């Protein structure tokens, strides 16, 4: 690598040319003087001595000049010259430059944008100190029946915290909402219930005040709260004196102990206030897996070891705590701890999809480069004359190659710069499409590393599209012709092969992308075809209302108030049906537990599998459009009298009694001490985990019950009203809903306003995102591929005008001439399609996990893509081929 250093020394010498120059003068003067003195010592006269010294040195000025050559920045000056020349050459061909630069910009821009997403979501470390040591704690269990894993119960957290040998810090958190009634109007805020250990694990220090201490989590401690920066600014105008003051949250006073810094984000959550998780070990039971676990591994502990450690603690935990009254503790025996990197866990749903996208977009970039390479090839051919002249004038081969390379680099940089602008715009679009399906959205940006990638891409693209023509053209050819270039009657086979190869590559990649997006379209169609368990969700308005305990303590009165609200909502015009639920379908709001059957003795029931529980008011099934398959819905008589009744989903009925009707009249209960509850209805399955997963078994309980799992009352204080109306989503409706709610209970806000359609769309957000992105990529690939075929044929037609003229003169019909070129295009396309199909067979397997209701080898898609692309290719070849038929033989032959 000595040439690198040598070039560097040369470049460096630019900055000190003057110093070197003066040094050289001094040095030579010193030399002459020394020689003169020597001559004097030898007995010469002073004049003679000086003259002889000069003679002995040789021409002072000549050697000075030679020496200067050694430190002058020759290479750099030449490069600047190349650069200027390159820019001028590109400006002389504006159409070529614009097309090439825009094509490159599309490829580079799309790749940059997707890389920015991949980097922000998957690669970039989480914004916490030493974030590699952060892990999430979850548990899978056979009794979950393949459903998503669960987090921790508080008792499990306490056991882990006491017994573990793997964690520096461990903590739990959960989402919540509460009503702040301090100051002017009551408002519901998103809260984060978090243990002190979770904040310690993240290593977060508050901007002001203090973080939570373990003491804040004690059941008898003063209630405390930490404000997020945004909420502090919005609600309290950044008033510093708020620290130490009480604010009323959930109608109870809480002391503000700290303010978080603006940069602080708790994973992907967007809470406004943090409240400590309060733990009273005396009241804990085994169950209640409502918390997410987070931990920081102690130095040197691997996730594997931590996992083994937790598996060791699980049996200790089962023996340490009481079960729910009437729930067998063995129910908790089949749990397996899952310790995952927090970063991976956050992106677990989209990791695979994003990599598929990245690969897809990289293919688009290659196609774009192939297109530009084609353009450059064509242009190089047109410039043969110019290059030949320059060769004749003494430009070396290396010099010309460097010249072309610099020109391509300029083009590449131009494309890269434009691409960066495109990427910046594209990122906004991506973020808005990705809203709700992408984690860590706020961390997606054009960061330095993304810029570096853009630069690298531009350079690689320039080498790729510039290198092929240079290598293929074989600069040796340049010196051969100073004849009029057009005389090179037929283009050389070598060059045609290069162009044909590029077209084949483009078509092949386009096939892969089209097959990929075709599979995605099939998936989307298949997903939309699954009846989600409710009908016309866009016309179901949802709004949540919370009645805190501090406001109304009595459960029966809460139930009456909810009934009252429902009656008032029903009077809103054009509302055909109203009801409410404790947890919205498909919105990931559920709880679950096992159930016991009256017709099977307890000891024969090995560990009752966990079932989803949902609490609904009468009329809920009718409102959202869930069919009652057998029996009946709840009635207000059931609710008001706390009758022991229950409704179950169809798949649960089939599982336990084979037939929905056979389930009617059977009795089940949720705890061994609860009264038996009669199954009065069976309803259609609701795809609660998203339509791509099997519909879970669901047990529907009435919204109000006298006893539930050993607790005296069961009432959902936070319920979501559902209104079926054609006016869903309109402002007018919302105003009326607000009025109706506050007329029932003054000052009660409504929150989480959305339609069931929004919830449904959100459950498919990741698939929609992948679909949109793949279709965009495939469309780009298709367009670029068509342009490639068109360009290749069009160019062949112009190149072979003379041949066409001769053929026409010899009697070939227009039709025959046309067919000749169309055949050329179609053959190229067919080769490309064949290669592409092989590639698609291999590559679509990677996207199997994104697919639903279709296999990666879906025949329809493959056939449609092949036939479609072949037809389009024929068309793309036909248009320029018509021009061949229009060639006038007389004119062409005379023109030469």
């Amino acid at each position, binding site marked *: 690598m*000595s040439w690198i*250093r*040598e070039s560097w*020394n*040369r470049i460096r*010498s630019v900055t000190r040319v003057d110093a*070197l120059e003066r*040094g*050289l003068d*001094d*040095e*030579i003067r*010193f*030399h002459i*003087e*020394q*020689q003169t003195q*020597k001559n004097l010592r030898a007995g010469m006269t002073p004049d003679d001595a000086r003259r002889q010294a000069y003679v*002995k*040195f*040789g*021409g*002072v000025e*000549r*050697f*000075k000049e*030679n*020496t200067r*050559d*050694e*430190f002058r920045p*020759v290479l750099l000056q*030449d490069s600047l010259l190349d650069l200027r020349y390159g820019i001028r050459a590109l400006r002389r061909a504006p159409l070529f430059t614009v097309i090439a630069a825009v094509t490159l910009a599309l490829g580079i821009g799309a790749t940059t944008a997707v890389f920015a997403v991949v980097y922000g979501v998957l690669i970039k470390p989480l914004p916490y100190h030493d974030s590699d040591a952060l892990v999430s704690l979850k548990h899978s269990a056979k009794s979950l029946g393949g459903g998503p894993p669960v987090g921790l119960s508080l008792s499990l957290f306490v056991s882990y915290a006491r017994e573990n040998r793997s964690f520096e810090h461990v903590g739990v958190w959960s989402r919540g909402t509460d009503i702040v009634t301090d100051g002017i109007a009551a408002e519901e805020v998103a809260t984060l219930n978090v243990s002190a250990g979770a904040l310690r694990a993240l290593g977060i220090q508050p901007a002001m005040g203090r973080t939570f201490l373990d003491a804040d989590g004690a059941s008898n401690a003063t209630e405390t709260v930490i404000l997020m920066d945004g909420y502090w600014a919005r609600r309290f105008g950044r008033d510093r004196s708020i620290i130490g003051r009480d604010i009323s949250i959930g109608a109870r006073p809480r002391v503000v102990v700290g303010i978080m810094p603006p940069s602080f984000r708790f994973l992907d959550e967007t809470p406004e206030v943090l409240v400590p998780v309060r733990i009273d070990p005396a009241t804990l039971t085994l169950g209640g897996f409502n918390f997410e676990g987070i931990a920081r591994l102690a130095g040197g502990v691997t996730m594997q070891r931590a996992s083994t450690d937790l598996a060791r603690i699980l049996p200790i935990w089962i023996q340490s705590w009481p079960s729910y009254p009437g729930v067998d503790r063995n129910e908790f025996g089949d749990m397996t701890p899952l310790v995952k990197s927090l970063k991976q866990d956050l992106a677990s749903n989209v990791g695979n999809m994003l990599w598929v996208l990245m690969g897809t977009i990289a293919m688009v970039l290659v196609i774009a480069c192939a297109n530009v390479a084609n353009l450059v090839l064509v242009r190089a051919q047109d410039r043969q004359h110019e290059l030949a002249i320059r060769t004749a004038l003494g430009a070396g081969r290396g010099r010309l190659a460097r010249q072309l390379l610099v020109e391509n680099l300029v083009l590449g940089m131009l494309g890269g710069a434009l691409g960066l602008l495109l990427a910046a715009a594209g990122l906004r679009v991506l973020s808005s499409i990705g809203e709700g399906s992408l984690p860590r959205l706020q961390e997606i940006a054009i960061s330095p590393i993304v810029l570096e990638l853009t630069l690298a891409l531009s350079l690689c693209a320039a080498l790729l599209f510039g290198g092929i023509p240079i290598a293929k053209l074989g600069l040796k050819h340049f010196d051969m012709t100073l004849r009029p270039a057009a005389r090179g009657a037929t283009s050389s086979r070598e060059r045609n092969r290069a162009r044909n190869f590029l077209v084949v590559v483009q078509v092949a990649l386009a096939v892969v992308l089209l097959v990929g997006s075709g599979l995605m379209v099939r998936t989307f169609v298949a997903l939309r075809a699954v009846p989600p368990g409710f009908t016309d969700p866009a016309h179901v308005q949802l709004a949540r209302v919370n009645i805190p305990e501090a406001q109304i303590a009595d459960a029966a009165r809460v139930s009456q108030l909810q009934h009252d609200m429902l009656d008032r909502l029903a009077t809103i015009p054009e509302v055909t049906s109203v009801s409410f639920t404790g947890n919205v379908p498909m919105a990931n709001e559920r709880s679950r537990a096992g159930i016991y059957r009256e017709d099977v003795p307890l000891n024969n029931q090995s560990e009752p599998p966990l079932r989803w529980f949902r609490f609904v008011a009468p009329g809920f099934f009718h409102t959202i459009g869930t069919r009652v398959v057998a029996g009946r819905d709840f009635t207000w008589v059931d609710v008001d009298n706390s009758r022991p009744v229950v409704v179950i989903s169809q798949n649960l009925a089939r599982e336990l009694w084979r037939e929905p009707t056979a389930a009617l009249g059977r009795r089940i209960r949720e705890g061994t001490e609860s009264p038996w509850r009669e199954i009065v209805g069976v309803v259609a399955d609701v795809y609660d985990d998203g339509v791509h997963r099997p519909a879970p078994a669901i047990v529907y309980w009435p919204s109000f019950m006298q006893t539930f799992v050993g607790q005296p009352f069961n009432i959902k204080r936070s319920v979501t009203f559902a209104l079926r109306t054609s006016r869903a989503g309109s402002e007018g409706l919302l105003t009326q809903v607000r009025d109706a709610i506050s007329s029932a209970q003054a000052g009660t806000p409504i929150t989480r306003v959305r339609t069931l359609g929004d919830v449904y769309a959100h459950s498919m957000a990741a698939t929609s995102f992948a679909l949109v992105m793949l279709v965009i990529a495939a469309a780009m690939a298709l367009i670029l591929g068509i342009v490639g075929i068109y360009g290749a044929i069009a160019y062949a037609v112009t190149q072979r005008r003379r041949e066409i003229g001769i053929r026409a003169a010899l009697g070939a019909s227009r039709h025959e001439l046309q067919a000749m070129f169309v055949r050329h295009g179609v053959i190229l396309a067919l080769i490309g399609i064949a290669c592409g199909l092989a590639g698609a067979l291999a590559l679509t397997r990677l996207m199997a996990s994104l697919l639903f209701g279709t296999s990666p080898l879906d025949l329809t898609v493959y056939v449609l893509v092949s036939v479609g692309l072949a037809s389009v290719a024929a068309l793309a070849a036909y248009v320029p081929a018509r021009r061949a038929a229009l060639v006038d033989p007389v004119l062409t032959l005379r023109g030469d």
Partner: protein
Amino acid sequence: MTKERSDLLQGTVTMLVLKALQVEPMHGWGITERIEHWSEEVLQLGQGTLYPALYRLERQDLIQSEWRVTENSRRAKYYSLTTQGRQQLEKELAQWRRASRAVNQVLDVTLASARPA
């Protein structure tokens, strides 16, 4: 921008300069003196040719320079070998010896032994 140089000559100058600096750092005039002295005045290189060679060697990091004061209090630029320069000298010497031995062998061939029997 192409510079006319005889490869043989240039290679030789490089080697002579490096050799002259092997013992101790020296200024340009001193180097010419040393070479002439050691070659018993046979090698009279045009003193000017030395300077392009010195600047090239410095750029190649084979030698380094430093302004110092001579015994009679004159400012002069002293050149000295770098580690790389030392290695380069070894390489060039070995090469030269091989080449000159080969040339000598050719020249020593007598008419009798040259003719195949």
